[in-house]
């Protein structure tokens, strides 16, 4: 089944890596990109996505805040936060807003977990 995914990270390299790994697993899915939380919110307001992979530490609004806002308008969307910031407070906040958390660096395993979460 085709799914539409938004990859959000201010690092172009991280977006490229994750998309490459995910295309290896799910070439039939479509992938859009955003380099900031604001851009992600703008795109998510205009299109419906099945899932979003979101970095946390970016210029402007944090990925946590962007994820929170997007969830308010798209209740069924699955959001996965992908970050090196493994502090418990961050993980707790992710849990509170109902999003998953995966630790960077981005590897094939990261893509497998995202596919598993979004493909449910």
């Amino acid at each position, binding site marked *: 089944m085709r799914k539409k995914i938004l990859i959000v990270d*201010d*690092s*172009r*390299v*991280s977006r*490229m*890596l994750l998309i*490459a*790994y995910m295309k290896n697993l799910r070439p039939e899915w479509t992938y859009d990109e955003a380099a900031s939380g604001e851009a992600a919110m703008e795109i998510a307001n205009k299109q419906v996505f099945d899932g979003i992979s979101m970095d946390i*530490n*970016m*210029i402007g609004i944090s990925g946590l805040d962007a994820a929170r806002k997007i969830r308010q308008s798209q209740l069924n969307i699955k959001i996965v936060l992908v*970050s*090196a*910031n*493994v*502090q*418990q*407070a*961050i993980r707790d906040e992710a849990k509170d807003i109902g999003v998953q958390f995966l*630790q*960077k*660096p981005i*590897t094939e395993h990261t893509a497998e977990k995202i596919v598993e979460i979004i493909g449910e």
Partner: protein
Amino acid sequence: MHVLTPLQEDALLEMLNISIGQAASVMSTMVNEPIDLHAPRMKMLGQGDPRDLLGDMTERSVCAVTQSFLGDFAGDAALIFPEENSLEIVQMMLNQEVPAVSLTDLEQDALKEIGNIILTSCLSSLCNMLGIHCTPALPYLRVGKGGSMFHSVSPDTDDPLILALHIHFQLRERDIEGLLLFLMPIPSFEHIKKGIDRLLATIT
């Protein structure tokens, strides 16, 4: 005088060791190569002294990813590589998943991301152990002579000292060395000391 007791210093170095170990594991995953770590060292420095920490990198051209941290753990962190090795590190990180064209366009982005991941994962695991919180700022990449990279900490008329933690590491199979550096103005160190004391209270 803002100093640590021997037990506090021992505890902090051990927690730093654990955090660095986790960061090294992260780095190893990114570059697909074993990382050898030297024991972390701690030093009190006066203004202008950070250059002493760079060793022979003082005179070499280096790439430094620097990142500030705010909150309970406030200060600056840096991941430093010799400039001539930076492209090789980027290529190791990207492996075959990204086309080799225009590596130059991606090099800065990749280096910043490497630094961001390693510095943030190290500090956030340290904060978890200490029960304190920090907020990472965005990483910056600087290229230049090692000795000219670091400037004095903003003057504090009461206490100009800074606490420096440094760890020398090496990518084993390619003989690439690097340096992890954490610089904290002493007044911001009180939260860390409280975290250490909380931890020590559970075991002493």
